[in-house]
């Protein structure tokens, strides 16, 4: 006869309660299985991707019978080609980055940067800014954690600039829509600005412009909780990232591409050349100033960037506009105000803004 175990009883009987926490062996997929499924998935993905262009021309010019080269025909073809292409790229990259990020935590990054001096620290911080999970609402606790761990102020800023500025979504969209050269330019110059601006802020010795209570933090201690992750956990994080990010941004992507399609088909070829072309010297600073209060996620802005470039806007001006929109945002500044005095925020905006303007002029003059 078997006595019924009361709930929560901690006797040796394993049968009434679900077994002890996470038997890893059963839960974890083997690396082999993961590779097989991954390869199949990637194969399917590439097959679909390769057929998008023929499908879009078939759809617009044969199925709908639109005239090739007509504004409506071009707009429809652009939209039918770009939407699935961007969504496919987005899903793949968000998944990969989601898995990659499971190897980096803010705690680990902080610990790593704590021992670094300036210059080398600025470089490391900017690079880690790309892969460390970050959202602008966690900027303040992150800032506090860095200060408390003794990470120099300039190094902290390199991280805070790189984290939003180098955005994997923007990177993939630039690659998909404009090619690897522009994507690489964006990545390289974004890193450069984060490193240089952080270094400059460090040189200026502005520690006094942090709020007083922040400076007193150094005595405290931070709590670090490391978790053991299996491959299944990491893949789950990738999947969650896809559901989360793609689920949220798809509407902006489609809206962005629709705007892009309209400009593509209907706006005359050199319409933008007059206001955003190389000849208009004031266009770079103007683009940066206009971009600062704007807050768009990278996914929505890139299709617009593509359309602007296609219509004769200068590359430097457009890149400056895009960087300003995604790197300097009003909500982030408002939240940083809780730990930084207004003067320091002003310096931050000025240094980063100037960096972006320089990059804009640089590209306008060399390309």
């Amino acid at each position: 006869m078997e006595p019924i175990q009361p709930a929560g009883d901690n006797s040796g009987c394993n049968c009434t309660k679900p077994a002890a926490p996470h038997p890893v062996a059963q839960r974890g997929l083997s690396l082999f299985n993961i590779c097989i499924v991954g390869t199949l998935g990637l194969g399917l993905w590439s097959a679909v991707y390769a057929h998008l262009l023929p499908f879009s021309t078939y759809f617009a010019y044969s199925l709908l019978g639109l005239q090739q080269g007509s504004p409506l025909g071009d707009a429809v073809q652009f939209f039918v080609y770009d939407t699935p292409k961007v969504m496919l790229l987005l899903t793949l990259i968000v998944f990969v980055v989601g898995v990659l990020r499971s190897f980096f935590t803010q705690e680990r990054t902080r610990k790593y940067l704590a021992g670094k001096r300036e210059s080398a620290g600025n470089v490391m911080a900017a690079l880690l800014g790309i892969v460390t999970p970050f959202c602008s609402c966690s900027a303040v606790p992150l800032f506090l954690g860095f200060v408390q761990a003794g990470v120099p102020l300039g190094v902290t800023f390199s991280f805070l600039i790189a984290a939003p500025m180098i955005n994997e979504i923007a990177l993939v969209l630039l690659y998909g829509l404009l090619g690897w050269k522009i994507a690489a330019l964006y990545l390289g110059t974004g890193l450069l600005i984060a490193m240089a601006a952080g270094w400059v802020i460090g040189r200026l010795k502005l520690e006094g412009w942090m709020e007083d209570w922040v400076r007193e933090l150094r005595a405290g201690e931070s709590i670090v909780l490391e978790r053991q992750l299996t491959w299944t956990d990491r893949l789950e994080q990738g999947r969650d990232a896809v559901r989360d990010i793609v689920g949220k941004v798809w509407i902006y992507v489609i809206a962005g591409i629709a705007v892009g399609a309209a400009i593509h088909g209907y706006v005359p070829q050199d319409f933008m050349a007059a206001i955003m072309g190389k000849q208009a010297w004031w266009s770079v600073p103007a683009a940066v100033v206009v971009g600062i209060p704007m807050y768009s996620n990278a996914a929505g802005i890139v299709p617009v960037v593509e359309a602007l470039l296609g219509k004769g806007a200068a590359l430097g001006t457009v890149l400056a506009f895009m960087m300003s929109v995604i790197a300097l945002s009003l909500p982030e500044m408002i939240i940083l105000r809780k730990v930084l005095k207004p003067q320091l925020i002003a310096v931050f905006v000025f240094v980063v803004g100037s960096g972006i303007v320089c990059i804009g002029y640089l590209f306008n003059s060399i390309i």
Partner: protein
Amino acid sequence: MVIQICGPGCAACDKTKEVVAAAVSAKGVGAAIIKVNDFQEMAKLGVFSTPAVVINGVVKCVGRVPKQVEVEEWLD
């Protein structure tokens, strides 16, 4: 039992609160769920990435939304 949820109030923090609330009602334990959105208070708790869950003064997780199963284990 006092459960503090640290976060300035973005989507991830709200999600954490939902998960914790669901775990509490699933477990049927009596617990007060308090939101901490003051950064200074978080720093005092030792929390430097959000969202974070603190149960009876002990930090249980930082910088991510926990799973409901995990939270239920912490409540035991």
